[in-house]
């Protein structure tokens, strides 16, 4: 367990303690303020070079990370690997060695294979590696911004601030994750973050979209989706990969929508205070009805907005300091 990500890589949320998570959320509060200024830029990472290495295209995550890096005054080397000559089958070691030769302090990495960011971190131990999503494994900044967004809204409702509330608002908070848990790195990061922060997590999905050995996870499995909706304080929907939507995992997209989609009908079961999250991009009409996505309870746009301060906080904490210990 890590109690801080200062000077470390950010590869997974599974090994972060509550303190480490709260520190990122608190730091992000400072950056929310920066993002509200007329001049949304601070010189914190001036002279630092951050490479963004996206093997899998993801416009929103990539833009969010690069905006965060630029607002910290870092130089950004943007490598659109997904559309470049680097193809499946190239050694990760060779690719990262090439980029490292340009002199980088950090690398933001998205890859279709689980564990790719961790592998890269072994090849360049002097570079801080930030996982921007690896296969089915983890999407740490998404988990952080989800927790951050929830804390922000709940704090506002109570007339306090996220900074003042720490992890208190998460105690006993009931979080329901719905849909393709099995293939979701967002779910893995959300579960790690919300559980460590003190929330109670329940999952609802067809059996084929639950991970193996779910009984050994720190979550409960919903036996009745409609009841779970009434139970939840927060409902986190997950993107159903369309290629997995048909065939062997679920019979059809329409059957999935009928059984686990957040339709207008089902949304009526939610308590008025219940928040709806979605990591995007949404399949409107599949996991979420268009009208539900536009309800005030849906904090989907806020999640996108909060991506920048969260990623600024992560870049700041992991890259800004030297790894030299005090007194050395």
């Amino acid at each position, binding site marked *: 367990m890590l109690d801080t990500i200062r000077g470390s890589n950010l590869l997974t949320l599974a090994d972060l303690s509550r303190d480490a998570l709260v520190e990122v959320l608190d730091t992000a509060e*400072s950056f929310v*303020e920066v993002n509200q200024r007329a001049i949304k830029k601070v010189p914190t990472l001036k002279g630092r070079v951050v490479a963004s290495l996206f093997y899998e295209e993801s416009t929103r995550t990539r833009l969010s990370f690069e905006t965060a890096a630029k607002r910290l005054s870092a130089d950004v080397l943007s490598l659109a690997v997904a559309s470049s000559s680097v193809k499946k089958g190239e050694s990760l070691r060779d690719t990262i060695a090439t980029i490292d030769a340009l002199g980088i302090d950090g690398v933001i990495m998205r890859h279709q294979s689980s564990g790719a960011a961790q592998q890269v971190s072994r090849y360049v131990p002097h570079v801080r590696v930030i996982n921007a999503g690896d296969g089915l494994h983890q999407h740490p900044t998404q988990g952080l911004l989800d927790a951050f967004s929830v804390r922000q809204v709940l704090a506002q409702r109570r007339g306090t601030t996220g900074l003042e509330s720490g992890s208190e608002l998460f105690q006993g908070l009931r979080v329901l994750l719905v849909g393709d848990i099995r293939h979701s790195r967002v779910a893995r990061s959300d579960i790690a973050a919300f559980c460590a922060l003190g929330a109670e997590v329940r999952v609802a999905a067809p059996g084929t979209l639950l991970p193996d050995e779910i009984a050994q996870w720190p979550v409960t499995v919903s036996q009745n989706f409609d009841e779970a909706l009434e139970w939840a304080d927060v409902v986190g929907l997950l993107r159903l990969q369309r290629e997995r939507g048909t065939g062997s995992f679920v019979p059809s997209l329409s059957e999935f929508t009928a059984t686990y989609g957040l339709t207008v009908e089902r949304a009526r079961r939610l308590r008025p205070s219940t928040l709806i999250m979605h990591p995007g991009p949404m399949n409107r009409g599949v996991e979420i009805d268009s009208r539900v996505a536009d309800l005030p309870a849906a904090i989907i746009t806020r999640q996108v907005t909060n991506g920048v301060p969260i990623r600024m906080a992560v870049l700041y904490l992991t890259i800004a300091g030297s790894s030299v210990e005090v007194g050395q």
Partner: protein
Amino acid sequence: MTSSNEPLARNAGGGFVEKSRLLGADDIQRALRRMAHEIVERNTDLSRLSIIGLQKGGEPFAVTLAANLREISGAQIPLGLLDVTFYRDDLASNPVPTTSATQIDHDLTDRTIVVVDDVLYTGRTIRAALNALSDWGRPRSVQLAVMVDRGHRELPIRPDYVGKNLPTAQSEAIVATIEGVWIGSLGEQHA
């Protein structure tokens, strides 16, 4: 306890070993009243004055100073808090400092700003503060008030209002809070 020996990060882990107390709470209050009078004397147009305390050490002094000014002049003196962590020039050579909230809810353009901090030492925090302020607007002028000036400047910066001048050795550490000022050493220094 707020400690204020630059660089900031070095006191993050505490380690302050007290030697003696140089000022008490009454001394602090007296100094802050005197400083408020000096500010009023020097600034004829108090309606343009803003007090900006530097996080975290400067905050309590800024709060008291602003209250004193309001009392003396009857003018509404806006108070803001500024965290300069993101503007520091020593981030790369020290562990990452914890950030604090910046709260400035009025436009600084064309205003006279009194920056308030606890201890003035190398001057690097004030340099960072000046850079930060320039991102908030273009003040008419910036003045500096500190509770303690302990010398050892590394930049061409001088205070306009000083609570107490305390010549120190670089190996010593100073802690200044609203409760008093102490001199001592940092336990972990020169490891």
